């Protein structure tokens, strides 16, 4: 029942939240409390997870739409179990930070955030395609409101663009899901349950997989986002309130990468093979394009946003070289990017709250005034550019390792793509360090003389992320041990269409 509780806690939390909606202060306290309870629940899930098992654990299954064979089916494996605490942690931090920064329509904001959390934890637990889709879409409306109501100047344009891009992709995925359902068996024996679908994936012809993979891939590529579907991202990030940016970068983008690993690869091995060259090409373009465009950004938030495009390029590259190092790197990159980029957005937000400037040229010399801020920001910047010893390094390194080992029978191999992706790592150092230098060093402006350093609340928000950044950088082994068996199984399914049996 613990997984269902993860879905239920934020929903049940709405009751006390709405009950005290007359007092803004009480609403904030309740919202933070609910997200902390949710965080604790996700840690219970992590603690009760059996490391070393490849299969799904803590399974829950109940009939939902019996006439269509659709089930309410939840479970976690080594990959998803790590995204749950990441989600709940980032949500708790976002809500905590928002108690200070959100000043209008506080109740609505907290309601939207809790509903968003339901969708986010849901996608990482759903083992039924229909259920996954429902959670996937459930994230949409709250985020739409969060950007549209509490966002910046061009929030309306940004939020509509975000929703329409996402919807266009996901509605095609819906068609594909129904197609998969119809292909899954004869009438009366159809299903959308992932384990059952994988066991019966022999029914999906290569031709069918080609098209269905395209539909799934589009939805995930837009969400991730992959080049050239990334154009909604800078707008959404720039206009979103800080908490929205943290969640968008930390969790929502991961839904795309997770979707590839959880559904597209194991269900459609032929489709994976067919689309693999295109995806690798786009990933490498994304890495280089994201890095180059980041370099020339004038807006601090936009810079971090474009750096996400580059970082997500590593994720798809790592997944689609189809070997354990690459895929492991991709999963770690997703987790670490969630922590680090979430933190970067938090710090850009904190800085903006104080200076009301986001244009890099208007900033400078802040290191003189804010020792604490500088230290934190420094660590996260270095982690983002992949400094060994911090968590950003581990994922990118493994992805590069996997890329060099990539050796397809036809077409360009790892020794072509590897160095190109490597250039992306170097460029990351260029734009991040240059950004840091321009923002933090140099002469301090008159206007910023009196601005205070981090408040205790801001430290409380940032500290858990800092600890994780260092800990996962120095000692990633426990995390790798959790991921490895499940990931190895997914890769076995993806690389050999003959593997179907014994999938639990």
């Amino acid at each position: 029942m613990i997984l269902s509780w993860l879905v239920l806690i934020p929903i049940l939390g709405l009751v006390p939240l709405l009950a005290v909606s007359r007092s803004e202060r009480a609403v904030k306290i309740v919202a933070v409390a609910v997200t902390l309870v949710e965080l604790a629940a996700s840690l219970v899930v992590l603690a009760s997870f059996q490391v070393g098992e490849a299969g799904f654990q803590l399974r829950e299954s109940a009939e939902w739409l019996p006439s269509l064979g659709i089930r309410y089916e939840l479970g976690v494996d080594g990959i998803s179990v790590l995204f749950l605490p990441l989600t709940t942690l980032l949500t708790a931090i976002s809500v905590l930070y928002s108690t200070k920064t959100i000043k209008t329509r506080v109740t609505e904001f907290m309601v939207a955030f809790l509903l968003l959390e339901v969708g986010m934890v849901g996608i990482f637990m759903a083992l039924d395609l229909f259920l996954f889709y429902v959670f996937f879409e459930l994230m949409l409306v709250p985020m739409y409101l969060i950007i549209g109501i509490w966002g910046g100047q061009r929030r309306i344009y940004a939020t509509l663009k975000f929703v329409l891009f996402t919807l266009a992709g996901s509605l095609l995925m819906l068609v594909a899901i129904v197609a998969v359902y119809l292909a899954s068996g004869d009438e009366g024996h159809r299903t959308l349950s992932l384990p059952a679908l994988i066991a019966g994936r022999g029914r999906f012809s290569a031709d069918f997989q080609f098209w269905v993979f395209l539909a799934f891939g589009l939805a995930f590529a837009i969400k991730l986002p992959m080049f050239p579907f990334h154009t909604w991202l800078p707008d959404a990030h720039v206009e979103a309130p800080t908490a929205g940016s943290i969640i968008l970068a930390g969790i929502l983008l991961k839904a795309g990468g997770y979707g590839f690993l959880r559904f597209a690869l194991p269900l459609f091995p032929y489709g994976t093979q067919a689309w693999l060259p295109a995806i690798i090409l786009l990933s490498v373009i994304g890495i280089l394009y994201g890095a180059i465009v980041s370099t020339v950004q004038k807006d601090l938030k936009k810079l971090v946003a474009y750096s996400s495009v580059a970082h997500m390029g590593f994720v798809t590259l790592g997944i689609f070289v189809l070997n354990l190092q690459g895929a492991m790197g991709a999963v770690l990159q997703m987790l670490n990017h969630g922590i680090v980029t979430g933190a970067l957005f938090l710090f850009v937000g904190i800085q903006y709250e104080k200076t009301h400037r986001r244009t890099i040229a208007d900033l400078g010399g802040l290191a003189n005034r804010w020792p604490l801020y500088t230290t934190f920001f420094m660590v996260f910047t270095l982690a983002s550019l992949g400094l060994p010893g911090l968590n950003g390094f581990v994922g990118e390194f493994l992805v590069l390792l996997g890329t060099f080992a990539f050796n397809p029978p036809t077409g360009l191999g790892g020794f072509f793509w590897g160095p190109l992706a490597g250039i992306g790592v170097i460029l990351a150092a260029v734009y991040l360090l240059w950004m840091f230098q321009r923002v933090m060093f140099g002469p301090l402006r008159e206007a910023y003389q009196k601005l205070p350093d981090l408040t205790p609340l801001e430290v409380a928000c940032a500290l858990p992320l800092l600890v994780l950044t260092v800990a996962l950088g120095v000692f990633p082994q426990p995390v790798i041990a959790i991921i490895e068996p499940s990931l190895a199984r997914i890769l076995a399914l993806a690389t050999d269409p003959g593997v179907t049996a014994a999938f639990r």
Partner: protein
Amino acid sequence: MTDVQGVLPEIIVTLTAMLVLLGESILDRDEGGTWLPVLTATGLVAALVAGPFTMAPTPLFGGFLTVDTFTTFFRDLFIVLALVATAVSPSYLRRRGLPIGEYYALILFSTVGAMTIALASDLITLFLGLELMTIPIYVLAGMQRRDRASNEAALKYFLLGAFSSALLLYGFVWLYGVTGTTDFGGITAALRSAGPASGTTIVALALVTVGLGFKAAVVPFHQWTPDAYDGAPTPATAFMSVAPKAAAFAAILQVFGALAPLQADWTTALALLAVVTMTGGNVVAVAQRNVKRMLAYSSVAHTGYVLAAVAAFRAGDSAVAGVLFYLAAYGLMNLGAFACLLFLDTEGTRGATLTELSGLAKRHPLAGLLLAVFLVSLAGIPPTIGFVAKVFVLQPVLEAGLTWLAVAIALNAALAAFYYLRVVVHVYMYDAEEGAPRLVPSWLLQASLALTAVAVVALGIVPNALYAWALEAAAPLVR
């Protein structure tokens, strides 16, 4: 089981309509405003209760009517829609000084007509029901007698409606000429034994398609829709955008069900019409600033989605069930969306524009939330009934092998989301402007719409019972 017992709900609704007319002449305006809606609702509920006792294993009235699961599904749907329409109307009627008794009586008569379509097992009964349903609607559209837009709406609707009825009747005549019978079962049998379609059957098919296409507002026969919807008093629009559409599709299912042997000829035609309809409706809706007009065009788009499921008829039960479920879903959410415009007091029959809706969520949080729920459902985003309805349409469409049609539905849904969510933008993300219309929230309007919104979300999460019922109702049609 006597013949009369089988049509008990229809008799109850008819009697209620007469009582309402009588009541109007007895009661003064104030009393009438209070008691006539109560009387209407009581009659409708009584008809709902009487429904389950009327199932008849054999045809009634010498084969003119049947009462099967298909009938009861539509009957209950029409009654529920009429009930909601009754509940949201009173304050508007009082405010505008519209004739109260006539309004409710017309809604009731139209409902009887719609119910008759669901009862029909013969072309003649079907046509009778269709006319009985639409004629009161012409009057409803023109109810605001001193309003030019309302007059235009009524006249346009009447002329095109009469024209389409003539075409339809002409088509029925050809059909009779080809098959020698007006009985649905007989038509199916005759067509089946006749083999491939001849020229005359194709003419009959074309005429019937066009005639019914007019009634359901299929592009390119939809021209009356925006003007009629826009010019009618808003609560009447709410009703006429859903019940007649559902009834038109009941007729389409009945007729095309009887024409099932000609499927090879009409599947592609209907599929193409479906794509043209949904795309046309959505594209024009994007350009609208007046929300009432936008919803009118969007209802054309929804016709397209339903028609897609009809085109997938060869998929069997699931296609018909998809149509039924979508109609129920569409009925609730579209009626709700139109009725939400009743929160604003705009002059004439005009609906609110986007700017007039700005800041609604701040001015009246409940109204804003309700409108948002209905629009999100119309856009087909979970967890609402609009989403599951789309899934139930996509399934038969893909099962019938019409993959391109399914892709068209998906792309159209994304396009539609743009203009639905644009309304939400105005409601939630803008501040109210100077001179925004006065808010006129009555408790009845709030309560009935809140109930409808709860149904829209609850049925989106647990649609089982409704879908199972739709499947059951589909069975008699898949012969």
